[in-house]
């Protein structure tokens, strides 16, 4: 049997001496969409950051395997090259570097890692334009500096474009729906749906149900107090939407 794409076991993580994740177990198979929901401060962002290698987090216990490989021992860039992608809650601006150039450098870093020749500027442009169409993004944004002066919606769409271009196997979306109006939300959701693939998995971290109206999850997990306190199907998200997180937190206490 193939190992799951992502297998997290007993993961305990602290930041500046404070334990944030207190034992996470999560198994994500290729072709599935998992939603991780939870109140503020429950450790949602910490989980996505620690899985993608951001510094400043201390893993106290547990493991995280990606396609059977020990993810936590790899530096951030290695994880990306292996096929793990994080769509940021707050995409970072880089002045003076065009989106196109940035994407090409990233794309070729990935190709190099997999022993493939780098793509020429012309071939890359073809690739990126196709992907821009897929996620309904204005190709003009490719010539602008990375996220520089982008609206909130443009930034999030740019994250989805990067996802489309880099073709990762595991996609972590960190509150991609935050700060989006309903139209932008729909476009982003359509982009994600267009990228669903039997070989690819999504872990959608979100505070609200509304993204899940458009990106239908196979599994929903509720993260509270640093633990997954409940897992279920998409109906769990609807229940949370109706009843809030209070009943779960109360059950925790």
């Amino acid at each position: 049997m193939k190992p799951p794409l992502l297998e997290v076991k007993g993961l305990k993580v602290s930041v500046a001496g404070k334990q944030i994740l207190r034992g996470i177990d999560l198994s994500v198979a290729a072709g599935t969409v998992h939603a991780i929901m939870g109140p503020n401060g429950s450790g949602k962002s910490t989980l996505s950051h620690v899985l993608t290698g951001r510094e400043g987090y201390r893993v106290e216990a547990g493991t995280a395997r990606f396609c059977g490989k020990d993810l936590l021992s790899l530096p951030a860039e290695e994880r990306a090259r292996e096929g793990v992608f994080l769509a940021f809650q707050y995409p970072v601006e880089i002045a003076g570097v065009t989106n196109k150039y940035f994407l090409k450098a990233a794309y070729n870093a990935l190709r190099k890692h997999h022993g493939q020749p780098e793509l020429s500027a012309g071939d890359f442009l073809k690739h990126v334009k196709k992907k821009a169409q897929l996620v309904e993004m204005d190709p003009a944004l490719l010539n602008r500096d990375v996220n520089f002066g982008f609206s909130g919606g443009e930034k999030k769409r740019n994250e989805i474009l990067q996802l489309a271009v880099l073709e990762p196997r595991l996609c972590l979306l960190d509150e991609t729906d935050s700060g989006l109006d309903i139209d932008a939300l729909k476009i982003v959701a359509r982009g994600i749906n267009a990228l669903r693939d039997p070989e690819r998995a999504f872990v959608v971290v979100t505070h609200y149900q509304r993204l899940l109206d458009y990106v239908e999850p196979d599994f929903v997990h509720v993260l509270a107090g640093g633990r997954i306190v409940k897992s279920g199907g998409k109906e769990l998200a609807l229940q949370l939407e109706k009843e809030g997180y209070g009943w779960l937190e109360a059950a925790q206490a």
Partner: protein
Amino acid sequence: MLTKTVNYAILVLEQKYTEFKSIFNDMANEPLERLTQEGYKYGFVSAIDADQAPPGLSEDVIRLISAKKGEPDWLLEWRLKAYRHWLTMKEPTWANVRYPKIDYQGIIYYSAPKPKKQLGSIEEVDPEVRRTFEKLGIPLEEQKLLAGVAVDAVLDSVSVATTFKKVLSEAGVIFCPFSEAVREHPDLVRKYLGSVVPYTDNFFATLNSAVFSDGSFAYIPKGVRCPMELSTYFRINAASTGQFERTLIVAEDDASVSYLEGCTAPMRDENQLHAAVVELVALDRAQIKYSTIQNWYPGDKDGKGGIYNFVTKRGICRGRSSKISWTQVETGSAITWKYPGCILKGDDSVGEFYSVALANHHQQADTGTKMIHLGRNTRSTIVSKGISAGHGQNSYRGLVKIAKDAVGSRNYSQCDSLLMGELCGAHTFPYLEVNNTSSRVEHEATTSRIGEDQLFYCRSRGLSSEDAVGMIVNGFCKEVFKELPIEFAVEAHKLLSISLEGSVG
């Protein structure tokens, strides 16, 4: 006396040869050691037969320099006036830099490779000199074939090769070593030498005026667009030899020229003083573009060694609607003290300054510009990008002065600083002086830090930390790099990344 000099020369040669050998042995045997010195890839010493003055400065040494060059009396007199004036001056202390006191009597003020005979073509150049250039990655023949750039190669204060003279002379352009210009075009030199930077200008410029060894001279006659980019590579070579280059560029009415200056120097432990002077003169509607990449040895990671670069560069837009544009990428030197400026005398004239200055490890840079608006409707643009890393200290110092009669003038200044790490510093000293009410001056400044956020963002897309820093820094400098001639821009790109290697992670 003669025997003594010869013996001394032999001694110097032997020392240099031993040093040369040991450096190459080190390179072969100690790859690790070289790696820890990464960044400065041009550290070697070439064993060229040097002919140098005894250390120290006196009227006799100045007479020796002048005599060696066969200079006319007026130039010797000019040098001596400068020297006498220099004796009354004090070394400036206002710059935001720290360094031990310089022993001006310990410096050797003249050093020249011995030409075996008069050189007619590039093939006749000392093979050692040519190998040196090859190590620098700038073989003259390649320049000749590929770049279409005329190279006036200055090595050890004496110009040893000039190419493309023919094409230039057909266009009427004079481009030659300064000493040759003194011989061949004395009237032009006499007319313009010191007309922008007088010998009384400042401590270092005055010292240069007294002892300058050689440099470049370019003259573009009326209505001529120089048919190629003019390029000079400077190189500090003999041990303890201060370099005092003198460059003079004159563009007559409706003439235009683009001049490139690029520098590297061998690795050294003792500090080396460099005090160059560059003067530009633009007459009616003339345009001069002067681009520099400066990559002199910055000292090691602990701040030991490195070049002191105390340079005076100034241009005058003497004619109407003339334009002078300075672009500099300063990545080298232990200390940089440099303010390329423009005197905008002609009505409607334009001055520009685009600068990237990097201070890594223990480097100190105090650099900026002076824009002096004298004519009506004159315009100036200043774009300064300072990058500080390690213990580096980077200061922008700029003066914008608009005279009473310079009505309708405008200046726009943008001054951005980028910090990497916790121990470096960025400082800004803008001076604005506006003496009429119809002129407008704008100054914008930003300070940012390459943050963990930006780095993580790039790394999460598969880029290494070093590639990410290179990308972010080059993005930061983009507005300046786009002003550089294309081949220089490519070099500048690489140079910045090399200079910042190891400054993250």
